[in-house]
């Protein structure tokens, strides 16, 4: 069996449950705000099933700075991507959690990428990595995935234009070798695919594998789904194999990557639960609901059990035709924004469209 997709339900949930219970206790003891939230809402802290593990909504990290370590122990601060003016999540990592995150990312990707470092094209700009202590979601993603490659080439210039000459030179240099590409779904679509179409050139990446994530929201507006995306990238850029992944800054360790059948999979140290969007009760496989993510990694901040604003569906567990164990699922997008009425904000409608 292929680690970390080797554990079957019973064994996995028992292991994970112990670790999550221990984390709940750890954060109760080390994060006052977390303790207040659980105690004041009468949450049961030591539980018997994964479904009972108390969860925080992802948005609390946008409103509060939560951590279970001292200020001196912080080695890295991750921030969520967000448009200007929007509040961003702040996630504090210490050495232990940061190292564990890097290690687990390697394990999750290994079944797809092998253990040899491949020549790597990053479909983004190098400038996102400017600040080494505070990382945006994009920067953190690039840095994490960089470990799988060598001879890193950043395909976008600082002004977001595509470095076509550099790209062609890189492909020529490594012709005949397997190439790894990494980027964010929307960036790839907007600044690579559309650019290539506009300049009417054909690129062939040869034996290549692309890993991408970051969400489909903007592509959905253009009616581009995953299979269209994959097909067009194959046609225009000659990318042979494409794997999407789902994950969020707020929960380190939760990287769910698509298997050969195109399903997102949960590795042994992370899991998901689908809940009814109104009652938050767990719902059966096959039904769409809110995604809750669980991970045994977050020790420096209380993010081991989070309720997201994403909708998804679990399609099955331990029986995916790809051979990997664990739950496999798909993500349908965000829940629609709340539009509560009220008497304020006369001009909002006129300006913020």
């Amino acid at each position: 069996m292929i680690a970390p997709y080797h554990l079957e339900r019973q064994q996995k949930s028992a292991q994970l449950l112990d670790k999550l219970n221990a984390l709940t206790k750890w954060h109760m003891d080390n994060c006052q705000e977390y303790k207040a939230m659980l105690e004041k809402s009468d949450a049961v802290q030591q539980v018997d099933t994964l479904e009972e593990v108390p969860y925080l909504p992802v948005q609390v990290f946008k409103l509060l700075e939560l951590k279970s370590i001292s200020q001196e122990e912080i080695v890295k601060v991750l921030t969520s991507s967000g448009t200007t003016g929007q509040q961003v999540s702040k996630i504090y990592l210490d050495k232990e959690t940061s190292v564990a995150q890097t290690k687990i990312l390697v394990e999750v990707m290994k079944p797809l990428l092998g253990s040899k470092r491949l020549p790597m094209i990053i479909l983004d700009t190098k400038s996102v990595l400017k600040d080494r202590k505070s990382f945006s979601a994009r920067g953190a993603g690039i840095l994490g995935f960089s470990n799988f490659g060598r001879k890193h080439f950043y395909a976008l210039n600082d002004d977001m234009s595509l470095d076509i000459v550099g790209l062609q030179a890189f492909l020529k240099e490594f012709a005949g070798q397997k190439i790894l590409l990494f980027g964010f779904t929307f960036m790839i679509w907007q600044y690579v695919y559309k650019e290539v179409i506009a300049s009417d050139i054909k690129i062939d990446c040869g034996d290549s594998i692309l890993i991408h994530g970051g969400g489909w929201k903007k592509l959905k507006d253009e009616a581009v789904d995953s299979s269209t995306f994959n097909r067009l990238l194959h046609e225009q850029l000659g990318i042979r194999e494409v794997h999407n992944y789902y994950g969020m800054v707020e929960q380190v360790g939760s990287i769910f990557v698509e298997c050969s059948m195109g399903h997102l999979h949960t590795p042994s140290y992370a899991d998901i639960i689908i809940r009814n969007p109104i009652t938050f009760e767990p719902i059966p496989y096959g039904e769409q609901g809110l995604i809750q993510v669980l991970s045994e990694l977050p020790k420096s901040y209380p993010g081991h059990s989070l309720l997201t604003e994403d909708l998804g569906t679990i399609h099955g567990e331990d029986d995916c035709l790809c051979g990997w164990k664990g739950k496999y699922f798909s993500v349908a997008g965000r829940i629609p924004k709340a539009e509560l009425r009220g008497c304020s904000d006369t001009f909002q409608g006129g300006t913020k469209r």
Partner: protein
Amino acid sequence: MNLFWPENIAFESAMEQLSFYKPNKPFDQEVVAFTQALSKRFLRIRELPEIVALGYWLRKANIKEMQAAFEQGAAQKKVRARGTVFHIAPSNVDTIFVYSWMLSLLAGNRNIIRISSKEQKGLNVLLQIIIEELTRPEFQKIAQQTIICTYGHEENATAVLSSACQTRVIWGGDVTISAIRSVPLAPLANELTFPDRFSLAVLNSEIISKLNEKELDNLVEQFYNDVFWFDQMACSSPRLIVWSGDNQEAINKFWTVFAQKIQQKQYELMAATQVLKYTTSLVLATESVVGNLENGLYFSRVKLSDVPADVRERHCGGGMFYEYTVETLKDLAGVLIDKDQTIAYFGFEREELENLVDAITTRGIDRIVPIGKALEFTGVWDGQSFLTSFTREVIII
């Protein structure tokens, strides 16, 4: 600039035409007839209760009553309209601009109304009826004295209209009011502003414990309307529930029956609101003044030992209740701040309410109304009388 009324004419021409007739006398016959025509039409829009409420407010008996009170106050005086009133309506409570306009019209003014460009479900219905009535020949004078428009923030229309009006009325949040206040107003003009407010309900648990099933159901029905008509987002929607008396059994019963009421009313719960309430309650839990939380399916309860301003700001609407307990109603005075607007009450004598008002040391509280009337509009709002602000007195000695 998008003109809803007048139709098929440029904004500049509409502005010229506006001043063709001089302002009317207060409670002009054509104006009163116009209010009656609108009232009849609005009362028929059963599917939108806030429009029915508007129609009911405009009913003949109420207008006559307003007129009698106005004429009594103006007896032996020369009271005249101010001229042109510029109303800036809120984006979310779509009926507000009609209340504001009608009172100004009854005072005798010409009116320019800027409505929000945001899509609102009730607005189209309202506008269609208004335009149809304005088109009728018997209302030709009013039609010519009215401009209803919308325009974006970036246009300088606010500056143009502010320098052309005698009264400016701003309905909107604090941010909007600050922004518009930076636009100069004609030197002689006065201004009414309606900023963000916070409202509460006071309930006497001892009295509630004595209610029979039918009485309790009725109370809860009224409370439901106060809370959910505008998703608990109107300035007057109760967000803080103050319990006087500590009859826990009655308090629990009240909430149980209320949950059943919401279910029975089939109030539409939305995922984003559910997540928002859950998030807000947990964030509040980190505040020392916050005690226990209860996140139910239909609403969340958050117990408070004090009500600081920032906790008021955190409120998210959609079924979130802060709860605070006092021994006697008068003790409430200590937690009230400038921002507090309406108290909806149940189970108190008038004398207790008056004592409370006398005990308040801040600017807070402009309305004290029975549960069920929190959203009921009256000609005095936020402490100011429209008919007074929309008119001027000429002194002859």
